[in-house]
């Protein structure tokens, strides 16, 4: 570690020359064989039971990783069907109802079984306890339970797919879903209910962990921003998910007993469903994107060797999004017959909630300023995130402004917008995080070349997939159309072609990441020379994360201070110091 510390300062060079070689720490202190003997969370227990009954947050994280990846594959296949069908104006491969079931499957699976659980389930489970210096989640058994609850909910989705699918769209609007759809609304509703319960449990666990399990010295001001983001996300999950649950319950009651809670012909009100549904489902998009933003903070700072620009602003913007994000759901209903006055309130709050996201984007960009940037896969993904999320964000403004929303509502413009935020934002953040922490999770390093290539392919493929859809949407092409007027064909063909490229991109990591498990070279404890607590332990981490209770003296992102001690002594930086490379000799836990 001393070698890390001195990098960059020891030799003042006359002519600095560009150096794109990855910033790898020198070869790990331990030879592979030694590392294998060293007990870690993967090898200290054997056998199937030690996995299915584990309460270790790291193993549960891996279980989530495998499961959500499988469901991502399902969702992607459904997306492929949808895009392929849209090559022809009259529908290339699917019947009308098949198409409806395909896009519904795509929506429900991607939302409830991938986007919502992926980062809280995998990275949140794996990293939050390590980042706050704890041995495990606050409620390990609850953690395991929430995984199995989620799996049970997922089974209901799979079941309803196998027995004929669902054709209501993921929004389940009554009276179509309650009265006119002959597909498996009840199974899907049950699935939504149960998976929601799981995400509540995870959220409780994370919040309790952040509040109660922080190691000595880990103040709120020293929490990694990923933890802040996960905290805000969990708050949303706890406060919003129950409302969706009860909404779905009432939908089921209406469907079973044929009583009009939402059915206007017997006194009910379909708009009420939309209100209660969006009370969850709009905050849900922040459940999906906030963890991604958290990941970006970690990756950007590490690969630009910089402090985050404006720690407080970024942290509180997460909380701000979490709170204000609850009060904007009505912008999904400007044209649904919602009251005009309330619509104005929602429109105003929508514009306000856009501000924290803007702050984040600018702060990220500013973080790069004056850095020493290298472009490994996680960094390329992170930059891709900023590029795509910016587009996703600004196009949201068109939809948030009541006037233009009239024309763009329910067109492909909306589709493109939320794919730019959800996929371009969340998926790229997820890939960045996965590539960033993969060495920590597995102890193996993946192929630098292939990972960079995959990042570029995904970026290009994604951008080209959804840019044409903005145009098609502005031309007026409605969403959820298996057939469409011929003049829209050109945009759809472009979009589909790029979608295939994107698909290739998303498939690549599966190969080189799994390959790295067998052929990858040992990553070492801290391949990216990052400062987070999770990097101070061995990789893969030991069964209880740290060998001794870590003690934190410094803020999270002290990349630019190779020798923290000096600054600590002259006290010039009011106690904000790296808990990582700098103070290895001050009792902070580190694996080596």
């Amino acid at each position, binding site marked *: 570690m001393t070698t890390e510390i001195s990098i960059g300062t020891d030799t003042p060079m006359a002519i600095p*020359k560009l150096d794109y070689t990855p910033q790898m720490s020198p070869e790990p202190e331990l030879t592979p064989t030694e590392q294998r003997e060293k007990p870690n969370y993967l090898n200290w227990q054997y056998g199937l039971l030690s996995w299915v009954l584990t309460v270790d947050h790291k193993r549960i994280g891996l279980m989530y990783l495998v499961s959500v990846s499988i469901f991502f594959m399902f969702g992607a296949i459904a997306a492929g069907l949808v895009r392929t069908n849209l090559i022809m104006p009259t529908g290339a491969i699917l019947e009308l109802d098949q198409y409806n079931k395909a896009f519904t499957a795509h929506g429900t699976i991607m939302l409830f079984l991938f986007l919502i659980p992926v980062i809280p389930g995998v990275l949140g489970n794996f990293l939050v306890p390590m980042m706050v210096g704890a041995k495990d989640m606050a409620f390990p058994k609850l953690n395991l339970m929430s995984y199995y609850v989620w799996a049970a909910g997922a089974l209901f989705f799979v079941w309803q797919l196998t027995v004929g699918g669902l054709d209501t769209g993921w929004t389940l609007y009554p009276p179509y879903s309650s009265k006119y759809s002959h597909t498996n609304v009840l199974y899907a509703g049950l699935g939504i209910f149960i998976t929601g319960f799981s995400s509540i449990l995870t959220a409780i666990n994370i919040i309790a962990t952040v509040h109660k399990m922080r190691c000595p010295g880990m103040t709120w001001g020293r929490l990694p921003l990923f933890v802040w983001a996960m905290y805000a996300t969990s708050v949303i999950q706890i406060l919003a998910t129950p409302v969706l649950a009860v909404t779905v319950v009432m939908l089921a009651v209406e469907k079973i007993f044929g009583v009009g809670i939402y059915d206007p012909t017997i006194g009910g009100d379909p708009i009420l469903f939309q209100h209660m549904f969006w009370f969850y489902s709009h905050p849900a998009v922040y459940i999906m994107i906030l963890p991604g933003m958290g990941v970006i903070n970690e990756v950007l700072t590490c690969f630009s060797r910089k402090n985050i620009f*404006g720690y407080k602003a970024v942290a509180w913007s997460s909380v701000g999004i979490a709170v204000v994000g609850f009060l904007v759901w009505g912008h999904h209903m400007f044209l649904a017959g919602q009251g005009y006055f309330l619509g104005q309130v929602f429109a105003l709050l929508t*514009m306000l909630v856009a501000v924290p996201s803007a702050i984040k984007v600018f702060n990220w960009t500013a973080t790069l*300023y004056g850095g*020493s940037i290298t472009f490994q896969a996680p960094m390329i993904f992170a930059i891709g995130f900023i590029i795509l999320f910016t587009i996703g964000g600004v196009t949201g403004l068109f939809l948030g402004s009541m006037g233009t929303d009239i024309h763009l509502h329910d067109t492909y413009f909306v589709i493109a917008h939320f794919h730019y935020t959800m996929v371009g934002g969340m998926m790229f953040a997820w890939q960045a995080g996965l590539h960033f922490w993969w060495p920590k999770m597995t102890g193996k390093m993946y192929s630098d070349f292939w990972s960079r290539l995959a990042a570029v392919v995904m970026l290009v493929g994604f951008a080209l997939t959804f840019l044409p859809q903005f145009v098609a949407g502005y*031309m007026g092409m409605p969403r959820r159309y298996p057939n*469409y007027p011929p003049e829209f064909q050109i945009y759809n063909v472009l979009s589909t072609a790029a979608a295939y490229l994107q698909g290739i991109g998303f498939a690549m990591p599966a190969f080189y990441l799994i390959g790295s498990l067998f052929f990858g070279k040992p990553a070492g404890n801290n391949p990216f020379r990052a400062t987070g607590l999770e990097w101070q332990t061995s990789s893969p981490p030991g069964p209880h994360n740290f060998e001794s209770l870590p003690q934190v003296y410094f803020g999270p992102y002290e990349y630019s201070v190779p020798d923290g001690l000096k600054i600590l002594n002259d006290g010039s930086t009011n106690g904000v110091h790296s808990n990582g490379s700098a103070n290895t000799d001050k009792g902070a836990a580190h694996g080596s």
Partner: protein
Amino acid sequence: MFASLDTSGFLPPQASEFAVQSDMLFYYITAVCILGSAVVYGLLAYCCFMFARKEGVPSKRILGSTKLEFLWTSIPLVFFLSFFVWGVRLYDIAINPPPEAHEREYTVVGKQWMWKIQHPTGQREINELHLPIDTAVKITGTSEDVIHDFGVPAFRSKFDVVPGRYTSAWYKPNKEGTYHLFCDQYCGQGHSQMVGKIHVLSQENYQAWLDGSYRIREGKNPVDGSPSWEGRKLFFKLQCVNCHNKESESRAPSLEAIYKTKRAIQGGTTIMATDDYLRNSIRNPMLHIRDGWKPIMPAYTRSQVTEEELLNVISYIKSLRPGDLPSRTESTPAPVGAKTQDTQAPAGGN
């Protein structure tokens, strides 16, 4: 099922004043957003190239700058609020029709999977709406089953039709032409079949269309509810179709497209087929006999055809175009527009 409409470039046609106003806001937001994104991307590119890792050049330690953060909090906020204000004013226009529009209220009923439309003058259409140019009209809609959405991109207009309630919008078309009508709210299997056409006609064409003598779409039948539509029913009721039909061996001259044409009559002269001519040929056929036909046409007296009915019949005859004349066996067909359903309309479900 979809006729490709002539749409030029990347922009949907602007067929109403509101479309222009809506696009102005759209362009405004676009300009601001492109500018903002340009700033972000510029900084991003600059940093990525200028601060790529250089041997021996450490990174600076910058913790942040409240001034800058205030800057890029307040500036976007100002623009966002401008979007909000302009957007609300635009929305105001969209939901508040001018007073004259209330006199011309068209009603729309959405149903899986068709639009049933009725004109203030009583004419009914399915999946088609003919509108007069430069006239503010109000559209009030509801649904028979699920939630639909009556969307006309060319007017930048869209509103959900909700079962159990009335919602509405208004247009003032200012450009003749044929535009798309979409159902924008997912409504089940036939969602993408629930589409149609908006025809914006000149005032006189619209009037002609109303009484059935002017038709844009192919198909033999006058618009439902128009005089010609009544006339057509009488045409069958009074057995005219027995002789005047499209069969080859028909015993009477074809009536297709004869209005305002010269007709050769016995005695070597010709006569212009005016309304009077048509009227006489029915009330008193022996007045003028068409050259080359036997005088077998019976006279229809007031007791058989009232004056009103006669007007309708004549209006129908005037509306006949080549190929429109029905065959004897034909019965009263479905109203105009219904055939656009049969393309892929699924069985059951509605």
